[in-house]
């Protein structure tokens, strides 16, 4: 029985860790990828909790489509949050 619980605990820790990392990090690309990891963990939870319909939706929408749309947005704006030095370098180099 204990062997069944351990992977679930690992999954919980992974999801919570990804959520905290998404808030803390200044690199928006890392933040978006870790939101994808949150969605993956959530869809596994939905599957474990016997809601396979919701799990399918979460896997298709949350992991793939939302992440890709955010990555496209980041490609067209800046990659770092706030007044990061790399943003300034990029802007200075191009103008």
């Amino acid at each position: 029985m204990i062997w069944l619980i351990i992977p679930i605990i690992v999954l919980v820790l992974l999801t919570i860790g990804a959520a905290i990392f998404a808030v803390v990090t200044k690199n928006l690309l890392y933040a978006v990828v870790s939101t994808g990891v949150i969605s993956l963990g959530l869809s596994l939870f939905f599957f474990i909790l016997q809601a396979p319909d919701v799990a399918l939706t979460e896997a298709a929408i949350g992991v793939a489509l939302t992440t890709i749309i955010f990555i496209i947005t980041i490609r067209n704006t800046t990659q770092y949050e706030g007044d990061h030095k790399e943003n300034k370098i990029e802007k200075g180099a191009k103008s």
Partner: protein
Amino acid sequence: MIKKVLVILLLAVIGFYLVDLLAQIPFGEKRDNVGDYYLQESVQSLKVANAVTGIVVNFRGFDTLGEVTVLFLAAMGLSSIMYRKKKKGDKDVRAKKPSSRILQVGVQIIFPMVVILGAYVFIHGHLTPGGGFQGGAIIATASLLMLITYRKFKVNHNTISWIESIAGVVFATLGIIGLIKGMSFLENFLPTGELNALLSGGIIAIIYVSVGFKVAAELTGVIDTVLLNNKPDSNNENN
């Protein structure tokens, strides 16, 4: 300072009334029988093995029509904001460099499988978990793979809007036929067949196939619009 105090006071008042309301509801007791009714009816009289589909498409069919409309409006709004006509001097926003050989070969193998999985999910929506929305999203993921791998892969927006419109019209027409037959909107008027057979559940299978086509077309259109039609500011255009 006084702003913060006001905000805290407001939150305290809202919280007090919420707790006051919620405390009156007994916790953990069974208060309605609608869940039991749905579980029983979707298997016994509708002959739908997946009770979620029975609820979403039959008992709550009108809500599903509303959801489809919301998705349609969102996709239309997005494309009307982002769409721009190509001028002669414009460079293609997509990178000129072809993607790696591994990605190209892998997508060639995986693309038909993903499309078949999506089609399976929405055709068997009344038998197995999943349905129109999920299957459509899976197919949109497949076309996303093609879009980011092959530079020459193009999505025809005319075809997409035709598929979208026809699927929406099929959904609404099925609802209106129910009205004509003297029942309520989206009432099941076809024979329900046997439990666990592919042709069972009456109009549910037809509605989910049309919803699947509609969602797949809409999400593909959204991805294509966002990926190709956005214009990076003039600073970025040089890379």
